[in-house]
């Protein structure tokens, strides 16, 4: 945990600083272009992932196997069970850029939006275990325990069903101003909306209790329909300011200051999200919730069916308006070029030569996945797993990836519009709450109204 903290800071800093260079990332030399409007769209669906898997298995195993084949071979390890697993995936990302000039200033307005939708439907029939708690054997891992428990049937034929869907939508509007006289970024602002929706439905449940070292303590198996909805929506705005961030015409090395003020407009969380993901995420990020966040607030947040605004709830109970976040950093910038001769401005925290480097490309740009993956905290992505991912990416030829050129053609415009529309629609739909008045209150209200009207009629007849 301690080791991961510098990485958290690094990830935060990366998030902050990456927001500003995005507008000038492209293969089209945008930062040096006159007024234009164009965009790009890029999607990955189940078919393309299947193709990647075939490429990877072909390279690693000498035989191309698709996702279905992998699932089939996995399920065939459990003879005597009728098992099926149907995965689903869809994603699309789009960027639209409008560049204009007013006076001595260039304005680069970008909208970047996209979504990822993942799902899996599992069905199984066979001799599954009875309800109860299972204890681990000596040295048994969590997955070993789960496998052993699930195969230890009690002689009863059971049907198991599990449906999981996870959707993530994001939408960012970024405005960057470049002073054409000095070649410096004079300011930038970002508006970001992000919604995650996770819905699980199953007719069984596994509760795994782990020890601090990650080893299993117990596994409980229970049957019965359960639903879990973990939703989160955040809407925030950030203003960035720079002093001395030369993009056009910089040379050598120089110091600059960066500042950011971020304001959260909405932070809606569902009770399941607050109960699990929020607590864990805040805990991992260093927000020790234990005893600090008033119990009443957590009670309120976690007992509601609908998403509640965490900040509004805190405000209504404590009178505390959550303040804006202000960050500042002294950075050292230098003009540099990568192995392929692509020029970029390199940014590092002043006096921290070994720390994280942020690159702001001058024209064409390549995403270095190795650098990006190393920014992810260890507790989220352990180093050995990152190595495996990088190996797969290398097989796919994706370890370094040229960013797609932004295009200005009707077909691209239409597909960009479709992505933006979908993101807008889904965010609005998921923010809406499906109203359901509990039946007992409808009955109480109906009975009460009938009694009230009867009473009123009785009094009226008797004379007021």
């Amino acid at each position, binding site marked *: 945990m301690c080791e991961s*903290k*510098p990485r*958290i*800071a690094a990830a*935060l*800093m990366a998030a902050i600083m990456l927001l500003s260079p995005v507008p000038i990332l492209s293969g089209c030399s945008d930062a040096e272009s006159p007024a234009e409007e164009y965009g790009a769209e890029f999607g990955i669906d189940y078919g393309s992932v299947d193709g990647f898997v075939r490429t990877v298995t072909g390279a690693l195993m000498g035989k191309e196997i698709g996702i279905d084949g992998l699932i089939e071979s996995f399920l065939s390890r459990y003879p005597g069970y009728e098992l099926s697993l149907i995965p689903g995936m869809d994603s699309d990302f789009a960027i639209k850029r409008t560049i204009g000039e007013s006076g001595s200033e260039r304005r680069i307005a970008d909208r970047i939006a996209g979504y990822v939708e993942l799902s899996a439907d599992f069905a199984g029939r066979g001799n599954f275990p009875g309800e109860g708690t299972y204890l681990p054997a000596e040295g048994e891992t969590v997955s070993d325990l789960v496998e052993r428990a699930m195969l230890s049937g009690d002689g009863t034929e059971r049907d198991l069903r599990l449906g999981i869907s996870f959707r993530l939508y994001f939408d960012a509007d970024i405005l960057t101003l470049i002073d054409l006289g000095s070649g410096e970024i004079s300011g930038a602002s970002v508006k970001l909306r992000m919604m995650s929706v996770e819905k699980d439905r199953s007719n069984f449940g596994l509760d795994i209790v782990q020890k601090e070292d990650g080893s299993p303590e117990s596994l409980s198996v229970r049957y019965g329909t359960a639903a879990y909805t973990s939703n989160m929506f955040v809407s925030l705005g950030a203003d960035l300011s720079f002093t001395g961030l030369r993009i056009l015409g910089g040379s050598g090395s120089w110091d600059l200051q960066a*500042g950011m003020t971020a304001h959260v407009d909405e932070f809606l969380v569902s009770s399941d999200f607050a109960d699990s993901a929020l607590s864990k995420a*805040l805990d991992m*990020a*260093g*927000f020790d919730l234990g005893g*600090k*966040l*008033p*119990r*009443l*607030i957590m*009670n*309120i*947040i976690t*007992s*509601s*069916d*609908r998403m*509640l*605004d965490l900040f*509004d*709830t*805190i405000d*209504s*109970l*404590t*009178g*505390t308006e*959550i*303040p804006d*976040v*202000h*960050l*500042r*950093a*002294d950075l050292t910038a230098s003009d540099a070029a990568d192995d392929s001769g692509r020029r970029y401005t390199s940014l590092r*925290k*002043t*006096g921290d030569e070994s720390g994280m480097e942020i690159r702001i490309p001058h024209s064409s740009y390549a995403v270095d996945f190795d650098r990006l993956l190393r920014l992810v905290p260890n507790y989220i992505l352990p180093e050995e797993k990152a190595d495996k991912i990088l190996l797969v990416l290398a097989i796919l030829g994706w370890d370094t990836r040229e960013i797609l050129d932004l295009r200005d053609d009707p077909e691209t415009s239409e597909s960009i519009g479709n992505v933006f529309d979908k993101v807008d629609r889904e965010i609005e739909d998921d923010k*809406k*709450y499906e*109203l*359901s*008045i*509990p039946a007992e*209150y409808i009955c*109480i*209200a109906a009975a*009460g*109204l009938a009694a*009230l009207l009867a009473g*009123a009629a009785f*009094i009226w007849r008797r004379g*007021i």
Partner: protein
Amino acid sequence: MNAEEKKRAVAMWGLALCLLSAAAGWMFMRFGQAWSIADLPQSDSVGWIVSAYIIAEVMMIPVAGKAADRFGCRPVLALGSFVFILSSLLCTVSLTVGMLATLRLAQGAGAGIMLAIAFTAVGKLYEPSKRGKCHELMTAAFAIGSLFASAAGYYLTDTFNWRAGFVVLSAMAGAGFAVAWKFLPPTSGSEEKTDIADTAAVALLFGTAALYTQTVNDKFDLLSVPSAVFAAAIIALAALALALGKRSGNPALPVRMGGFEKKLMFLMFMFSMCGLGLIQYFFKLYLAYYEFDIYAASSYFLLLILGAAGPSMLGCRKVFATGVRPWVLTGSAIVAASLIITHFIADKGTLQFGISLFLFGLGLGFIVTEVLCSLQTVVEKKDMGQHTGCLMAIRMIGILVGNAVVGSYISEVLHGSRVTRVIDLNATGNALEEMASNFFSDIRQASASLDEGLMASVLIMAAVAAALAAVAYALEKDDVSALRRDGESPGER
């Protein structure tokens, strides 16, 4: 006690239950409103769920009092209860926040009518010397409803659903009305026709004043241009209501009352502002101290009620004989002292909290019921609703003004103490950790500022309470004891 007296006594319990519902209706959604309506579509109008109720309630109190003089207590109570129960039941099946806020407006109107009738009926049905016990019952119902509604609302929402609170309120009001209707003897009305324009102006005046108290701290500052415009509009409406009242043959406001009554109205307003107006902030402060344990914080209000019970029970029985002056003089001294004590010790520990609340209640126990009893003593029964309605509306406005003034002051303190924190990425190893630390220290800072703001306000209120002793001293020449010496008081007619 003969059969007739027994029936009246039972009717008073029914009215007290109606009053308890009306008082609880305001505060039961006060804390965690967002949570309370969590299964309704998101809306920016959430704040109106509480505000709409109190605005309509205050607006209807003087109107209902006057209507009781015109039509008698029973039909007006029937109307108020019907509106309250109907709107409460419909609240349980609200589809939107806007619909809920509108129904809360209707519910508040019903509550205002029930509140006015509860206090008016005591004056109309009992002789001055026997009103004390009934007013004690009504005041207790009002206090319990106001002080414990937040905790009860929290419990019902946490255990069942926010809708359960409305079911309980409508059931209480229904039971109270049924008992009151069965046993309440008819009270005579008057043939004098209601002056619609005058009554509408009075309703508008009190409604606007209540609206001002609900928006001043939320939408704009106390010392700002919108606030001044609003205040000017209230003054203009007051002038209009008074002018219409003086011209009217049957005014809604007691525009021709004597100096004694005016002083009582003034004292009721000021003590409500200095005393009851602070209670919400006491509660918020307690919540912060008790790590937001709403039940622990609420339980301390028992001490306030305990403090008020003794002098109130004694005062409402004796004030008819002794006059109100000694009670208000003693009460203002104790309130001033208790506020000073609160300022110095209340935040030192739970025991000190309890002591300051007990003393605070003790002081108010000498004043509130005694002023009400005294006012009704000098009023003729045919005008009881007009005077009682006006006094109770002024009392409610006093509470709301106290709330708004203290709230504005505390907002100022909170605002002044807010520090803009800048996280220097060069100096910190973990920006998120620093953000977390800032976040929690902001909450602590807010609690401390709330404490500081309240404690400063408390001292100012103490000075005001002490100054009110001078007004109380000036009550002597018109006091009810003098009226008693001169013979039958108007309240007996």
